[in-house]
């Protein structure tokens, strides 16, 4: 974050209000993602959102396009992280505020209809987003499989048992030195666990029990964690693993659904 921006926030020229009780931040939607995250980190929090390609984009733009979150397995996407804001729409006679509340049953969820509409319905000028404390403990957990499909099956099982890693990837033979060396012709399901220390420990224990017949290892040394972060947390790795999850998350592109969205878009544009 540039000093200039920091000063502007301090002087109140850029709105940035962190509510540490409710774990939400309200700020100008024109803030860039990387600045937003750095500012939160300074306060001991994270926005729980990152996108490898879009760190320089503004929050408004990210919401407009509903750009994917690499941490979605644990924290969901922007549609869940954004809990309110001020919206300006060409379809409305005046800007309006979306109340900040965890959930509502007040008709269609306008907030979630606006997110991802690619500007068709307007854009956020101010936004309220959930934030999370920086994790107390980070660890990688590796499980060995013969094939990618088996690793994906294991991931589904883990997800349905409510273990939600921050990030998941395949790991294959790598120069990174690990306690147990990785074997050739094997693929490893790499789960990045992060939370309170006690929670990470209990997740590890559960995983050890679930996969006791497999070759497994937990990685807790800082340097090795950093090496694994560098090796695995990138667009290619993210795309590869998520490409296996279409069926699980029902990422179906039904032609009828695409058509229905397109028809609505045409009507609203007209």
């Amino acid at each position, binding site marked *: 974050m540039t000093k200039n921006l920091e000063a502007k926030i301090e002087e109140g020229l850029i709105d940035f209000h962190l509510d540490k009780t409710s774990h939400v931040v309200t700020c100008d939607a024109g803030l860039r993602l990387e600045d937003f995250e750095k500012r939160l980190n300074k306060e001991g929090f994270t926005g729980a959102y990152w996108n490898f390609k879009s760190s320089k984009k503004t929050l408004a733009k990210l919401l407009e396009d*509903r750009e994917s979150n690499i941490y979605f397995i644990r924290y969901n996407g922007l549609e869940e992280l954004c809990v309110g804001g001020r919206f300006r729409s060409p379809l409305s006679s005046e800007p309006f505020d979306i109340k900040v509340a965890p959930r509502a*049953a007040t008709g*269609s969820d306008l907030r979630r209809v606006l997110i991802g509409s690619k500007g068709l319905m307007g854009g956020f000028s101010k936004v309220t987003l959930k934030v999370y404390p920086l994790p107390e403990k980070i660890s990688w957990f590796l499980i060995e499989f013969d094939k990618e499909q088996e690793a994906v099956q294991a991931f589904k099982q883990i997800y349905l048992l409510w273990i939600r890693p921050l990030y998941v990837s395949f790991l294959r033979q790598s120069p990174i030195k690990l306690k147990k060396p990785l074997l050739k012709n094997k693929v490893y399901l790499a789960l990045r666990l992060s939370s309170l220390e006690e929670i990470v420990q209990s997740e590890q224990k559960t995983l050890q029990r679930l996969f006791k017949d497999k070759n497994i290892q937990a990685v807790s040394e800082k340097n090795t964690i950093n090496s694994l972060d560098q090796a695995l947390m990138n667009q290619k790795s993210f795309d590869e693993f998520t490409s296996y999850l279409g069926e699980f998350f029902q990422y179906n592109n039904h032609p009828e659904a695409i058509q229905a969205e397109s028809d609505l878009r045409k009507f609203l544009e007209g």
Partner: protein
Amino acid sequence: MIIESPQLSESFLDQVEKIVGPSYTSSKKLDRLNYARDSWFRETIKAKYAKTNHFADIIVWPANRDQVQSLVKLALLEKIPVVPYGAGSGVCGGVVPVKGGMIIDMKRMNRLIHLDKENGIVEAEAGILSMHLEDQLQRQGFTLGHFPSSIICASLGGCLAARSAGQLSSRYGKIEDMTLEMEVVTGRAEVVQTRNTNNRDGIDLNQIFLGSEGTLCLITKAKLRVYPLPKERIFQAVRMKDMETSIEAMRRFTQTGLKPSVVRLYDELDTFMLLSSKTKDHTHKKEKKKSEGFLAELKELGKFKAVRKALTFPRLLNAASKFIPNGCATVYVLEGEKEMIRREQKILMDICGSLGAEDLGDQPAYHWYQNRYRISYNSSPAFYTGNLIDTIEVAISWNKLNELYEAMVKAVSPHALIMAHLSHVYTDGGSLYFTFLAPLKGVRSGQKVYDKIWNKAMATCNKIGAVISHHHGIGRLKAKFMQEEWGTGGLDLYRRLKEYYDPHAIMNPGKLIQEKEDIAQAS
């Protein structure tokens, strides 16, 4: 009460019969009377005094999506209002046929279509009862995790249309969190298939139709996330000195990122009801039958003349309830893998202990769990012993929860006995659920008191910034408050969607928002 003859042409009725078959349509007065309301209390007061005044002209029971589509096409041609009907458990008047027309009851569309065990996804028709769906899933080792207290009389479609929440929402989320895809028939008589757009681009049609309360479409089927049944469950109750401290403990625990399935905090009066019914539960069998939750207690209380008389001085009664020396109880249910929930329990008790909590053990939580569906059904006996009873569920962020609680109690206290619990929590806030009770003295005065309470409660919510509904929906009850809830800009946006999906305004008129003609009619 006069039920006039149906105002539909013979040819319309004939065509309806052709679509669904003669056995699945009715214009009988008895059916029209039975379908004149849901469980909205204001309409219940009217029904008690034989003042029901809105009747559908015809009720139909389609068997499949094509029949639903044909019925909407027909209604569209003749500009006949269409009111979708699930199981009638709504509490906001969402199915009251204010302009007559055709009620489409979805109950015959009640199949669990497919359970994908590998991916944890169920596909079901909208008319299936929530309890039947859950039973079928549990028989196969799965759960939807959606347990509204109306589970035995709420349809899946109704839950989707009103953004329902179950008692285990803190873990499984609300129904909108579980929904992946939907199929609907819009007011244009078109079938629309939606897709899951979470964490990727596209207009989220799910979020347009969820909560639309039949004003845009009829929901015909949906795909939802399901989970394997939990292996273990831990029950835990604690007591703290007051609401503020208890809210703080819940907040800290929720913000650890853990997902307890049940978190329910009771205020002083509600705690008194919870703990006294629990105590009786462990005395002897005769008393156990009597004690089925706090509403049963209210019913018992309502029978006593002195207490009924005291209800005419609600402010005094509310003030007195604050001096009940029992503090505030919270029940927690943790479920999942053994190692994980034991660790969760330790974290929970560490947090509660640091705030001075008393460990009440597992019994109050277990007792609540065992009796969790009974509570809501005790409102009827309370009503028939001469009490006006209803609930208000609102939501807000953590920093304003206690302020909201105190302001709501203050606003309603002059008119009714009021108590509350906090039972749906998220990292950023939660939902307060208020129950109020006042003596019912006739249809006009009953409605007057009822309206006054709701007006004051909703004004309080708006002032503090809470959303006016967390999971009951809007229906007819709260439509007049939507101008303030969404603002003109929000309403404009919704009206554009309405213009597209229901261009002739045939879908469930008079619900969700108040149009100018509704305001004129009401005045």
